[in-house]
């Protein structure tokens, strides 16, 4: 029972950077722009966070700086694609390399410098739940922040006027423009804010897990997030279970190995990806109607 709690806690913690990245990509794609530079924005955010944490000692400033660094890369992507009309997949891919390269280069002087962790938050009431409570509910602040961001994003997208404008931009930019929707500004906003969430995801990786900046530390989580956007059906609320289940499957396979269950580690580490493909197939059979924003579908053809 206690182990279940520990695995769940580990799943939620490990799922959070992926969750933030999925949310960022959902926002960008809902406005009609795919951002393949997500992993680069995460790396840049992680490196910047480490620098600011070391320079100022302030965790809050460090988290903000990491988000801004991600946002700047996102703004570049948005400017190139929305204003200069550069092919969206090419621009994103280039900015992935730019972000990763700059992070590695500027981060070189601080590689391996230890950083303090994030303060964790104990929710006193929920903490009283036996077994599960303490393990799940003593997470760091970014974990709760990510859940709040998912809820706010859902509300903005589906319950506000701005959300309608974003969806209109993502479904049919021509029609939206004819109706007076400021498509360019909406897209600049969504891609930039989305990439700032990727920056925050990177910040969480350095402050919440590794406690140091190392080149290559994002290790493909940005790419996983882009895949999981499809599974989350471009819905911020569905992003929660997607990210946590993904984190959970990794936690389960690691705990299985730690408990001495002798299945080939190669097969075990495939588990999260097999489940993702199975879920995608099931989702496709369940509903023929795809949730993909039409403008995104156009860009990919």
């Amino acid at each position, binding site marked *: 029972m206690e182990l279940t709690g520990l695995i769940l806690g580990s799943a939620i913690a490990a799922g959070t950077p992926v969750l933030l990245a999925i949310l960022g990509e959902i926002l960008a794609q809902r406005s009609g722009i795919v951002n393949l530079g997500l992993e680069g924005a995460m790396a840049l955010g992680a490196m910047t966070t480490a620098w600011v944490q070391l320079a100022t000692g302030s965790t809050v400033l460090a988290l903000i700086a990491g988000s801004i660094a991600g946002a700047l890369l996102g703004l570049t992507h948005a400017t190139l694609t929305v204003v200069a009309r550069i092919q969206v997949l090419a621009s994103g891919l280039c900015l992935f390399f730019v972000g990763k390269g700059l992070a590695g280069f500027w981060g070189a002087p601080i590689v391996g410098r230890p950083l303090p962790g994030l303060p964790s938050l104990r929710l006193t009431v929920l903490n009283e739940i036996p077994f599960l409570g303490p393990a799940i509910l003593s997470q760091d602040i970014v974990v709760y922040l990510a859940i709040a961001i998912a809820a706010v994003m859902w509300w903005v997208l589906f319950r506000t006027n701005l959300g309608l404008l974003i969806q209109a931009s993502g479904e049919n930019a021509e029609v939206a423009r004819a109706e007076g929707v400021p498509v360019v500004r909406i897209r600049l906003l969504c891609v930039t804010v989305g990439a700032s969430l990727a920056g925050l995801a990177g910040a969480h990786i350095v402050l919440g897990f*590794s406690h140091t900046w*190392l*080149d290559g530390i994002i*290790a493909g989580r940005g790419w996983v997030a882009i895949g999981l956007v499809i599974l989350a059906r471009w819905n911020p609320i569905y992003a929660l279970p997607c990210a946590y289940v993904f984190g959970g499957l990794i936690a389960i396979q*690691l*705990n299985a190995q*730690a*408990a001495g269950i*002798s299945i080939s580690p190669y097969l075990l580490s495939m588990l999260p990806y097999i489940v993702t493909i199975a879920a995608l197939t099931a989702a496709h059979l369940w509903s023929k109607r795809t949730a993909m924003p039409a403008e995104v579908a156009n860009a990919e053809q």
Partner: protein
Amino acid sequence: MKASTRRLMLILLGSLLPLVACFGCNRGSEGPTGFSGFSPSEKRTQIAFLVNGPVSDWGYNYSQNEGRLFVDQALGKEVRTGVLENIPETSEAERVMERAIEAGVKVVIATSFGYQDATIAVAGRHPDVRFLQAWGFKRSPNVGSYSVKMYEVWYLMGIVAGRMTKTNKLGIVAAHPIPPMKWQLNAYVLGARSVNPKVTATVTFINHWFDPVLAGQATEALINQGHDVVCGVLDSSVGVAQAAEKRGVWLIGHNADLSGFAPARCLTGTRWLWGKLYYDQIRLMLQGKWKGGEDATGGLKEGYVGMTGFSAAVPGEVQREVQTARQKIIDGKLAAYAGPISDNTGKERVPAGKTLSHEEIMGIDWLVEGVR
């Protein structure tokens, strides 16, 4: 958006990119790294080190660069060194070696096993250039291989772990289930069981050389199962160190000094001392005594491997026990792979009275008794 605003944004963006690039240039000239460090007109012997990742990984490549800097310091009047980072273990490595040789490089040091075929191919075309190939088994008149006996240090680490564990369960996070991982972690477990036969070990393979976040998760999973001394046999053990510190279990470091990441929990750790090996090899080359076609190897005795200092948490008697064993290994009276040794299926792998040779150890593809 108006056309004028659009133009303005493009101009702004256009001016931003060169600015970023220039900022980059100014910061780049930290040392003789990359091709710019080499020149055909250089009088000193130029030496290129190829590494497969960034030297800032706080792991294997970091230790390689430490070795290069050691050579630079000791032989700077006669040699000029440079490191070529992030070189893929593909035919790309051949191209990089050719370019380095064009720039006047006379000694190529390939620090990763994956360069072996590229090394042999390029060496065939350049008989005047000498090559050192890490962990290699293919050699030629101008290619020598080298490897170090890290298992000697792991055996000592095992003694520390065997004495410090309360639960008698050691947790190991390793990269891939391949011989270079297995001969290291086997020696660790053999060392632990030599002082505490009740010890068992669990190894988790994460199938990544470098993913500190995943390594941290794997470590926590091992801690959940009651393993109270953990270590990483990975490129970078930083994630393992963080998890050990957070959850309050003992850590054995690897590759580099990890006490900064787990100040309260790092007992001691292994260290590669490539500098000494490279110094010895390059000295032979400068004196004209170097011969290709051989494997250069050494361990504690030669100073090619070592350990980081003990933390205060390791009792004095354990420290003395380790020092005694270290001396015995140096004197040739103790070996990690001395029989009888069985594997974890019960099959005898080394009969009593026999000790595995260095070459046999490099090929170990089984896990020792007590590991699961």
